[in-house]
């Protein structure tokens, strides 16, 4: 089975500055990830995990230092490959307002994909109206400029533009960042409607776990640029195999005063990527770290049922319970 998007050993490293220095700072390390047709995958991580870099690397906005990106079974290569990818896959940016060119009207902006890819556009006004209607915006919005839109409206324009050429994959970077709860629900509903209607695949990048539970079939957890856990959403949430995933889930404040946590889910901070910890990179914050974790790096190991985790003790069912216990009730 080939997915609509297949990443193989994708690595990104940034030059460390300095005119003559060749040193590079690894941001993403050997990421393998696939998104099947019509599937919705969530990429989860805190700031500094490399999740936004991954999105940009997929769209060719970030120089890749290793590995491949394949779209629709074909490795993306050269200008033609990139153009095809950018036609059949679309991206929604975290800051929706800032991602709209400020001196152009919404009407122009939503029809721009047609112009870019030389697609026929006999009736730009009508097309703009249809696209806006699809995302629930009135036609009058077409004459507005980006700075005249509210956050929710800008988000919808972003969706309209992403869908203009009926893509097969949409990469959404924090699709609800900065939106109020009520507006957030509207955008998520819109995204799921469109997915059902057009058979879209989503790669949703977010730190919001509540959102993941609702929109993703599968979840991939990143820590310091490496995948630490991957699996079907329901299973991962029910029984996280990696202590980091468990910590993230436990850290999310619950909107129920009867379920207050009396303990601290996770201590310490994400280490700087300039000073990666030895061994398992999570050991500095891990509640169940042992000696082996400090000097031996675990590999991403399959756990069956489409699940993988990068932890020495992930496959020990007993231990998994132990992790969960340690995190929840210390």
């Amino acid at each position: 089975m080939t997915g609509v998007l297949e990443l193989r050993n994708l690595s990104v490293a940034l030059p460390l500055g300095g005119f003559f220095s060749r040193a590079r700072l690894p941001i993403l390390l050997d990421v393998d990830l696939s998104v099947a047709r019509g599937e919705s995958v969530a990429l989860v991580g805190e700031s500094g995990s490399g999740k936004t870099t991954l999105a940009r690397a997929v769209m060719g906005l970030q120089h890749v230092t290793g590995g491949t990106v394949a779209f629709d079974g074909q490795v993306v290569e050269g200008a033609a490959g990139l153009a095809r990818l950018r036609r059949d896959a679309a991206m929604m940016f975290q800051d929706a307002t800032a991602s709209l060119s400020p001196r152009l009207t919404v009407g122009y902006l939503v029809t721009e994909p047609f112009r870019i890819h030389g697609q026929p556009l006999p009736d730009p006004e009508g097309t703009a109206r249809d696209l806006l209607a699809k995302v629930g915006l009135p036609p009058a919005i077409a004459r507005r400029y980006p700075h005249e839109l509210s956050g929710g409206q800008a988000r919808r324009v972003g969706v309209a533009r992403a869908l203009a050429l009926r893509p097969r994959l949409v990469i959404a970077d924090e699709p609800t960042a900065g939106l109020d709860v009520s507006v957030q629900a509207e955008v998520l509903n819109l995204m799921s409607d469109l997915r059902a209607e057009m058979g879209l695949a989503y790669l949703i990048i977010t730190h919001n776990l509540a959102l993941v539970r609702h929109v993703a079939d599968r979840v991939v957890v990143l820590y310091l640029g490496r995948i630490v856990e991957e699996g079907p959403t329901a299973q991962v949430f029910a029984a996280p195999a990696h202590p980091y995933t468990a910590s993230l889930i436990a850290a999310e404040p619950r909107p129920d005063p009867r379920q207050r946590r009396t303990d601290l889910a996770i201590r310490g901070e994400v280490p700087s990527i300039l000073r990666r910890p030895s061994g398992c990179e999570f050991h500095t914050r891990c509640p169940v770290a042992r000696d082996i974790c400090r000097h031996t790096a675990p590999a991403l190991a399959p756990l069956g049922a489409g699940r993988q985790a990068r932890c020495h003790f992930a496959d020990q069912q007993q231990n998994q319970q132990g992790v969960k216990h340690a995190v929840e009730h210390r």
Partner: protein
Amino acid sequence: MSVLSVEDLSVSYRIPGGRLRAVRDVSLSVGRGEVLGIMGESGCGKSTLAAAMIGLLPAGASVDGGVIRLNGADMLRLPVDEQRRLRGQSVAMVFQDPMTAFNPVLTIGRQLADFIGAHDAARHNRADIAAMLEKVGIPDPARCLGRYPHELSGGMRQRVAIAAALLMQPDVLIADEPTTALDVTMEAQIIHLLRDLRTSFDGAIVIVTHHLGVIAELCDRVAVMYAGEVVEEAAVDALFHDPRHPYTRALLSCDPAVVQPGIGHLPTIGGRIPDLSALPPGCAFAARCAMTDATCASPVPRHRAAGRSVLCHRSKA
């Protein structure tokens, strides 16, 4: 006995061609040892209310009426210099963005010393400051004092901000979106820290946020704001498990965190908040409310019952 109380406070902003009524007839109070949450979506007036409580309304905003009492004294009618003296000493604030809340060219130690020095140069004691930093979980307090803000992480800076606010042992601590700019694991730590503080801090705490989870984790009592008004006020358990105002109910039901996964569509609230410079008569939520009827266009009564108030025609407290 309440430490801080707000009575019938109204605040508006001057805008071209009129006034934007950001806070309307708000009455709230908070007592020692109590944590009050002020919850609402953007544009509901919660940040303006918080700014008014500490006497730092932005340019263009003015108090149209009402009283803010701090330990019984009417803050708004105090001379400017007296007001200033209360800030930091009696009422302290923690801001949303820890990245920009500190002066970039001065060390943490120098800034904290300046804050204390504004009130009482004698208490200007490095050891006390370090002790407070230690208390909020800063690993190497003495070293931290010599550092510049950009050398600390966001979580650390927010800890420093909390330490700074507590240094003068104020009667009220106001935290405006204290965790919004932080990652989940940092957010959990700050929530934990704030909750831990309740054991050693005997003042009142006011948490202003849009995040339902933060409210549920931290607060004793909650005021829900909509379009500048407090539409419902209740004890936290009652509010989350027995919400009475239609807006509160709608808001709670929209949060993806409470909705069971796999139900398909998330509930939403249709429509937008009304234009605050041209408010309709009657209920401001009527246009978006599922239970609206003809009475909603007339001035809304506030129903009160034990520990609870609801601003609605159709629901009782």
